[in-house]
């Protein structure tokens, strides 16, 4: 939850930037018995955001599949060694540059981090770089 609030702060700071935000909520811990409530959804209130409930964690599975299929494509370094079939991608944030297309596999991000709340300074830097003409 702190990650969502921290992200909203960055979005507020960058209100004029042309960007899109995809917020994917997924059950990970035992209390995640249902989709996010209005309170959780309201943490990210930026109009550039679209929110999704991924009950079966299909996006996480798709990302793990892509990482394992072609590790050289993603700038993960040592973290990649920790990715296996059981890995759940969550509390995770990634920035994708203009022009990146999601074809069979999700494209390589220009920045990624986890947990989200500790990735905020990196996110600010990445947005500064990614939005330069």
């Amino acid at each position, binding site marked *: 939850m702190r990650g969502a609030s921290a992200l909203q702060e960055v979005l507020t700071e960058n209100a004029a930037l042309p960007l899109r935000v995809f917020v994917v909520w997924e*059950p990970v811990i035992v209390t995640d018995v249902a989709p996010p409530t209005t309170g959780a959804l*309201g943490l990210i209130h930026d109009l550039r955001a679209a929110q999704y409930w991924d009950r079966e964690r299909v996006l996480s599975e798709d990302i793990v599949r892509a990482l394992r299929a072609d590790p050289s494509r993603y700038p993960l370094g040592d973290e990649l060694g920790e990715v296996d079939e059981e890995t759940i991608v969550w509390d995770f944030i990634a920035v*994708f540059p203009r022009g990146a297309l999601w074809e069979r596999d999700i494209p390589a991000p220009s920045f990624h981090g986890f947990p989200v709340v500790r990735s905020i300074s990196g996110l600010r830097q990445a947005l500064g770089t990614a939005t330069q003409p």
Partner: protein
Amino acid sequence: MKKLSVWTKTALALAVLVPIALAGLWLAWMKYAPRRVPAGQPALATLDAASLGRLRDAFNEHHDEVRILVMLSPT
């Protein structure tokens, strides 16, 4: 064997029943609580194997913009 007083029995019963009742209330809240996105955002969409392509399409539709993907747990 020492018999428990009425107060002790009541306290023990409350110690068991109150957490159960609170857990039930919390589960009911989680199940039936409203789930509205902030005004101006598209409605909350459900992802599954069949609809993952719609997220991909939305991502690609905005290829001329920087995109942020964030994956979070609701609690």
